[in-house]
């Protein structure tokens, strides 16, 4: 590997100093870390306001309103009502906007639930015997049948764990619920493992930035 030398770009230097300042917390709590933490939060908040205005409010609301679509002014009124929640005297007014929003969301829930969950429920009814492998697939009928059977068994076990409407006295239900709990533990373990991998990936990206982008190594 040929060292390419330190970066001469001010933005890279600022990024590198910011990264090191935030990593300094790993050694101990310090003022430099706090300074950069607040700097980053401030930058992100400012960026959000700017982006929301430039990308959404200005083209979607401000320009059309001044371009003749004057009813858009009522959107401002509805939006401002949300902020009355901070006033003891007028906070009842915020319920008008919240109610309108809830109405919109409730209406959407039907479509959301149907489109998201119905295909998955339908897909959970799997053929557990005599499954035909897709053309060109190396899978066998027995393998696919077994795979589907495991799937259905796990679904039933996990569902039985959530039978809270009655006391689980039956031994079969108890065993099924316990198996369902273990299956969920496997899933949570997989999620935790994936979370660790994600954090490592983010660390590696930052270290690579410092090594390659800033110091010119690698």
């Amino acid at each position, binding site marked *: 590997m040929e060292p390419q030398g330190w970066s001469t770009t001010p933005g890279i230097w600022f990024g590198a100093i910011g990264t090191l300042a935030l990593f300094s917390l790993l050694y101990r709590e310090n003022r430099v870390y706090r300074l950069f933490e607040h700097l980053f939060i401030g930058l992100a908040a400012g960026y959000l306001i700017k982006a929301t205005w430039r990308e959404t409010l200005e*083209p979607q609301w401000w320009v059309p309103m001044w371009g003749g679509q004057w009813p858009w002014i009522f959107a401002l009124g509805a939006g401002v009502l949300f902020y009355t929640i901070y006033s003891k005297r007028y906070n009842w007014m915020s319920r008008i906007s919240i109610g309108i929003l809830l109405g919109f969301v409730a209406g959407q829930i039907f479509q959301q639930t149907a489109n998201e969950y119905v295909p998955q429920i339908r897909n959970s009814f799997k053929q557990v015997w005599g499954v035909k492998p897709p053309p060109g697939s190396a899978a066998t009928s027995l393998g696919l049948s077994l795979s589907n059977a495991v799937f259905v068994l796990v679904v039933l076990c996990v569902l039985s764990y959530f039978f809270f409407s009655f006391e689980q006295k039956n031994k079969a239900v108890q065993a099924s619920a316990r198996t369902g709990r273990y299956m969920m533990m496997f899933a949570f373990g997989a999620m935790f493992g994936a979370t660790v991998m994600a954090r490592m990936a983010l660390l*590696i990206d930052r270290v*690579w930035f410092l090594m390659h982008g800033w110091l010119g190594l690698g």
Partner: protein
Amino acid sequence: MNRTHWTQRIDPRWLYLILLALVIIGLLVPIPLPLIIGPQTRALYDAVEHAPADKLAILCTNWSASTQGENRPQTEVILRHLMRRKVRIALMAWEQQSTNLARELVEELAPEYGYVYGRDWINWGYRAEANGTLKGMVLDIRDTFKTESHTRIALTDLQRLPVMAGVRNTKDVGLIIEISAAGTYKNWIQFVIGSTPAKFGYGPTSVMAPELYNYIDAGQMAGMMFGIKGAAEYEHLLIEDGTLKKPGFTTKAIAPISLALVLLFVLIGLGNYGMIATRKMERDA
């Protein structure tokens, strides 16, 4: 007398130092590790490979600088694949930072593949609210976004934006991909997928990936990239098909990740051993 096992008294800063050293070694020293392409990555690759070349592909991003370690390489491999196939691309974002981060990435890659803004790609910009935007896109994309994001050219101006030719709503789109650090894949599935022939592919952070297999199994998603590992697998597929000449950062990152995970296995083992040993010491005392 301190009645804790020595493993319980290790200063965590030593562990951070060991982790850092392993990451640096993994990045500097080439360690050949096998990379098995997962079926979900291959399925995503196939979806992009077989997306109609004469139709627009939507690339939606929902990531910021905080997760760019995973999401940027994912975005890059998808962009390279689409650009190699000369598919028209429309960028859009649910995250205010990613609208610029993704745009910068396209601008970086565009000269390599001869992509011209307005003709081959367009940026629809950032939208703060997903549900309303998606419902609007199902009806009329031009009316939903009205203008592109760079210079505010109206989407109906096909003279200056030929990329929008033949695109009225999501039925006219050939492929939808989202690269995301949040669960906005649900919004696409809830409001768009099913109303369009376009396949939907997803690039989540590793944190989110395990919960997505249901959607792939049910056919709601064509495929996905499992975090940075998925991006490395995709990069490998792009090397196989000649889109890429050599592995990039993503493939390089697999070795340090593997080393870091081995370290974590060891530390988890040591931590549990130390806890049991401490309990025994307390009982014996």
